[in-house]
């Protein structure tokens, strides 16, 4: 039955890392080869696709809606003069000059009434210019009249002028950057990176909440707890889910890259952003991306260890779901604290955001975008790793104390009002004694 005599030279125990690896390997493979993982991968792509389509359609609609065309109901000569004035000014003022078009109905109807025409909701004009070139009259809603009164006056004046307009040529010289623009650019990069980090941790760290539910439900937890230290179980589960997250990010990244390769122009047009010329972070893109991966890992492990502990107290899926909301709120608060440090009034808070373990990865990633100092990242990563260790140790001790206890003894215990205390008595490991 047993071959222990042949195993006498085998180490009597697994190291914590080896034990964590056994747990991580099992969990990683179990998650990766489950059907649910496919849905997990597809999940975030749906809102991206829907958002992209909605954005595209919305962009078209908004583009159409934003074209301001002003109708002209004047004599033929005055109409021509007004159009000439607009064309003269357009090279200088660009979009400030509205599109003008002669209203066909007005040309053929000497009794054309602009007010009645607009009230009857005919045509697609935001306003109508009537009268003469010397005394133009603008008819439209209050907002449109206020908006176009000045430009129409300028256009009419230019169109009425017999002499050709001479505009002095402005000499220009450009610089690559300035302190103000560089800081603005880096703040944008910092904000964007914090947002990406927040979205990823929010999407992925929440999974850890229910991670011990299977072991508790299947009563496997006792076998694990008897074989290896509980902190190794926690660590293994965290790293398994981190690995799963990286697989997810890799898949989403690949899909995103493919989408970009196919529709770069459309994406740039719709989002109105030139991604190829995004402002660079202070440490340069390669180092910034490497730090981004490191800080994502830390944010995930920090939040994950907390969530694992909280989730381990739950006995049912319903309880896990109930906990999801406050946990999401906590993530939001952490994000807001880190984001606040980027505002002009929030700079004082940056050291606190860096020191507080949960917001530290967010604050430090922003710092990587803003500041060129490198050593501080090594210190911050060490600080965060220390807290990961402390949270895992604390969480596992808490779990061992609160959950890994016998149910039988609870039969004589008093009723408790606390959710966790009450649940801990319930027969998660029943029927024990």
């Amino acid at each position, binding site marked *: 039955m047993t071959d222990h005599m042949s195993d006498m030279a085998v180490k009597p125990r697994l190291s914590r890392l080896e034990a964590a690896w056994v747990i991580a390997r099992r969990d990683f493979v179990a998650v990766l080869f489950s059907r649910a993982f496919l849905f997990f991968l597809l999940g975030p792509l749906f809102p991206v696709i829907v958002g992209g389509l909605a954005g595209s359609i919305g962009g078209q609609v908004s583009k159409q809606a934003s074209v301001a065309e002003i109708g002209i109901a004047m004599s033929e000569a005055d109409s021509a003069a007004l159009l000439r004035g607009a064309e003269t000014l357009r090279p200088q003022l660009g979009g400030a000059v509205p599109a003008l078009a002669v209203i066909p109905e007005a040309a053929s109807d000497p009794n054309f009434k602009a007010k009645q025409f607009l009230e009857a909701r005919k045509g697609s004009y935001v306003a109508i210019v009537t009268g003469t070139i010397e005394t133009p009259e603008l008819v439209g809603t209050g907002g449109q009249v206020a908006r176009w009164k000045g430009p129409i006056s300028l256009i009419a004046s230019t169109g009425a002028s017999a002499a050709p307009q001479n505009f002095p040529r402005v000499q220009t010289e450009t610089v690559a950057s300035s302190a103000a623009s560089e800081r603005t650019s880096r703040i944008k990069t910092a904000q964007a990176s914090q947002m990406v980090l927040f979205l990823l941790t929010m999407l992925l760290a929440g999974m850890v909440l229910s991670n011990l539910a299977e072991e508790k439900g299947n009563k496997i937890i*006792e076998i694990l707890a008897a*074989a290896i230290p509980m902190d190794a179980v926690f660590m293994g589960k965290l790293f398994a889910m981190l690995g799963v997250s990286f697989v997810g990010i890799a898949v989403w990244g690949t899909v995103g890259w493919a989408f970009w390769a196919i529709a770069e122009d459309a994406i740039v047009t719709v989002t109105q952003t030139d991604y190829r010329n995004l402002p660079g972070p202070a440490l340069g893109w390669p180092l910034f991306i490497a730090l981004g991966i490191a800080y994502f890992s830390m944010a995930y492990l920090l939040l994950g260890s907390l969530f694992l502990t909280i989730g381990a107290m739950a006995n049912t899926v319903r309880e896990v779901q109930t906990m999801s909301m406050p946990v999401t709120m906590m993530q939001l608060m952490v994000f807001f604290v880190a984001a606040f440090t980027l505002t002009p009034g929030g700079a004082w808070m940056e050291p606190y955001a860096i020191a507080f373990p949960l917001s530290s990865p967010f604050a430090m990633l922003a710092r990587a975008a803003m500041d060129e100092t490198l050593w501080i990242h090594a210190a911050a990563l060490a600080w965060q790793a220390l807290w990961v260790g402390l949270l895992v140790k604390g969480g596992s001790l808490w779990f061992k104390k609160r959950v*890994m206890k016998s149910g039988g003894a609870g039969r004589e215990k008093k009723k408790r009002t606390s959710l966790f205390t009450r649940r801990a008595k319930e027969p998660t490991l029943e029927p*024990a004694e």
Partner: protein
Amino acid sequence: MDMAVSEIVASHNHTSPVDIIGAQPVVDTRPLAIEARGLVKSFDGTRAVDGVDIAVPEGAIYGILGPNGAGKTTTLRMLLGIIDPDEGVRRVFGHDRPHDVGRLIGYLPEERGLYPAMKAIDAIAFMGALRGLPKAEGRKRGLELLERHDLSHAADRQIRQLSKGMAQTVQLLGTLVHGPRLVVLDEPFSGLDAINQGKLERMIRSLAEEGVTVIFSTHVIHHAERLCEGVAIIAGGKVPYAGSVETARDRIPAQVRLETRAREGGWNKALPQDARREGDFFYFSLPETGVEPLLKDLIAGEAGILSLSIERAGLHDAFVAIAGEAAARQLEADQAGAGS
């Protein structure tokens, strides 16, 4: 600090009295696989275990006997390091931290637990990996064990596809796959039919023959009586007796059953004071002087002896005497509940 198995065995190779609270201490020269002294554990102010002392020599089959709620599982969990005692010390192969010798231990909890989506062979290999057995070696040994138990056809089936009995066997094999020197089984017979209980008993004996220490908890006295060399009787979180089964039984005097032709006579005075009559029989404790002087008096008084038998006390009687009537009644109720 990692030590090889052989070093661990050598490091605690000392002798120790096995009977801690037994009537007469018996010196056992075998080293102890498990030693616990004064273990105390409270949950929310209630003492689940209150000063437990246990000493289990290597190679023994040892039972922890008590009714449900007595503290058996809590004691086992403390011995295995699943939970830590509030007071007292525990040593497994001489180590204060049981996880330090996790490679040497196999544990089957009362609540059977396996990943339902896992294949049987993977479940066994996984449980071996938790104890340090390389995955490939775990699969190889797992297949051998499954074959030996006529379950090779189930190797690639998911746990959820197995019957309850098969799943229990798979878990038991997972407990043994890494070749432990100490096997701890919490209520291993619960939920098994008579055939599988017999198989398990044979397996336990076979392990002990190979030098493996087996500790199991049970509330069924005859399992402990048939299998165990030593028992700890546990009731209300306390261990009123820990020692050999024989010593426990010897605590109760043997019972004499006497049948005579004559009902009354002068020979009645020769009967011990505790003698009681039930039907045609007299029952009384075996006198300290033995049965010979009594026989002489009965013959001289012409009692007409039809039959006389001396019955040694069973573990049940010992349990009643040691743990009390209330604990014995609860134990009987648990057994009836488990059997129904």
